[in-house]
């Protein structure tokens, strides 16, 4: 599948934004994150910039961005529509809670606690909806499985945790327990990515050139002549292929930059003073950003669509 830059930015940025937003609210409701005004203010600002920036960027690849509001109407059947509706709904409880925490912390604490929990749930559901846009597409074997929603949720949590660590370090209040939790999530995400690639390399679509043409009973089916001499929309959009050697290198970059380097940097930061920790944690999030964008690019580039079977692919 063709990896569109706007969609890669949208899914990674909004994932990190929802991760951080959910953690800030959950941290405040549970009283684990220090209640510092500017820490919370910058934290919420960063979350909303990432989320809104991602959502806006996702409209850039549309043929008619001015009609994007129509995408909110078909939530009964479409995961893309559900994603849009949830993204907008999530602004309500999370926004109310952010205002409450920043400006009116003493008002209606009981109810606002519930609003905060609702906000956290909405963040999770929104990221799940984003993942389901891909996981619901049966013709794409690499996407139509349970690894995909698990991965989107895990990577959103991971990038949120990395961001929260940096924020805390900037205010000189590193939390060892938070760093340990981040290490744990990084470890799980690393294992998930490897398991996903094992699955991808050892399995293929149930559809074959034989089932695509129905000619299997006569023998092995191979494309003899393509319909046109030049590439068409279907081949450019769905037939995007990446060479195996490049994919191996990019997988390595994903693992090293996305998981291994952040794990090492956080481990080292445990032995440093506040300033050193801040620098190391900032390096960790920058490295993870490179890793996650590469991961998302590969998520598209490595996915094969059944339409390829009509254009000479031996499997999908």
């Amino acid at each position, binding site marked *: 599948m063709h990896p569109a830059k706007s969609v890669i930015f949208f899914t990674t940025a909004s994932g990190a934004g929802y991760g951080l937003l959910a953690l800030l609210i959950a941290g405040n409701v549970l009283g684990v994150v220090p209640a510092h005004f500017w820490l919370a203010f910058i934290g919420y600002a960063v979350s909303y910039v990432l989320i809104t920036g991602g959502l806006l960027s996702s409209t850039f690849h549309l043929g008619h961005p001015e009609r994007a509001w129509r995408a909110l109407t078909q939530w009964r059947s479409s995961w893309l529509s559900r994603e849009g509706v949830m993204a907008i709904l999530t602004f309500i409880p999370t926004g109310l809670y952010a205002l409450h925490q920043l400006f009116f912390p003493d008002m209606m604490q009981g109810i606002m606690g519930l609003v905060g929990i609702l906000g956290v749930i909405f963040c999770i559901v929104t990221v799940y909806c984003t993942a389901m846009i891909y996981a619901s*597409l049966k013709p794409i074997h690499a996407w139509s499985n349970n690894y995909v929603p698990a991965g989107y949720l895990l990577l959103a949590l991971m990038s949120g945790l990395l961001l929260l660590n940096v924020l805390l370090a900037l205010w000189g209040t590193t939390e060892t327990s938070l760093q340990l939790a981040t290490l744990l999530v990084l470890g799980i995400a690393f294992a998930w990515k490897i398991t996903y690639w094992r699955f991808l390399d050892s399995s293929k679509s149930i559809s074959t050139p034989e089932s695509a*043409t129905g000619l299997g009973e006569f023998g092995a089916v191979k494309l003899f002549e393509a319909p046109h001499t030049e590439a068409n929309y279907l081949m450019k959009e769905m037939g995007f292929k990446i060479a195996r050697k490049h994919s191996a290198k990019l997988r390595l970059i994903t693992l090293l930059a996305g998981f291994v380097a952040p794990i090492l940097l956080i481990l080292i930061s445990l032995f440093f003073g506040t300033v050193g920790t801040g620098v190391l944690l900032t390096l960790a999030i920058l490295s993870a950003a490179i890793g996650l964008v590469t991961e998302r690019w590969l998520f598209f580039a490595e996915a094969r669509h059944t339409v390829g079977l009509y254009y000479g692919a031996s499997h999908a």
Partner: protein
Amino acid sequence: MTSLPTTPPKKKLGLVIDLDICVGCHACAVNCKEWNTGGHSAPLTDIDPYGADPTGVWFNRIHSFEVENEETGGRTVHFPKSCLHCEDAPCVTVCPTGASYKREEDGIVLVNADHCIGCKLCSWACPYGAREYDEDAGVMKKCTLCVDKIYNPNLPEESRVPACVSTCPAGARSFGDLGDPDSDVSKLVAKRSGYDLMPEQECKPTNKYLPPRPKKLGNDGPPPELAPVADSSAGVIARWVDKFLSA
């Protein structure tokens, strides 16, 4: 509304494509382009049509496949493919705007170009690659089953079939109601064991394909007409020539 019709359409209009007859001449694709570039989803934009890298919107494309079999020998099958107007059309249910819909009256799958935002998700959801993005118009387009032709009262009765069907010089394409077991197309499908493409994708396509008939020539050697004629069944002159030459 991008939910599928709650009650299955009364009629299931679709195509039956006979792979035994198709000669791969591409006339159906050309006439499809010709009709539809002035029809419901007009225009079928071409980008750089006379340049080095032309690309454009086509609703019908003809692939040619080679089927290899050591026992029966290889064969070439010409394979036209357009929208299959599926009963469980995933391209319809993924549409976030309601632009994509399946008609309740006859099952035809269409796009409302005024509501389409051009997100391309429907083209990802279709396992067959039946959807075509028009970069110039910024909307998705697809085979309309010539909805503006088959119901057109200004055309003579016999012309009210999709453009690909009316133009096929070999008669490889049939059009009709596949929901009615007594229709000509349904009878044809039953008689020739018509089948669905990629049934495992569970889209329940309406269009059916008829398999090529078994070949007369396998690997049993040349046909009798081409065998040497020196036996007793040959004529007098042939036998005499044979004798003369064998000497």
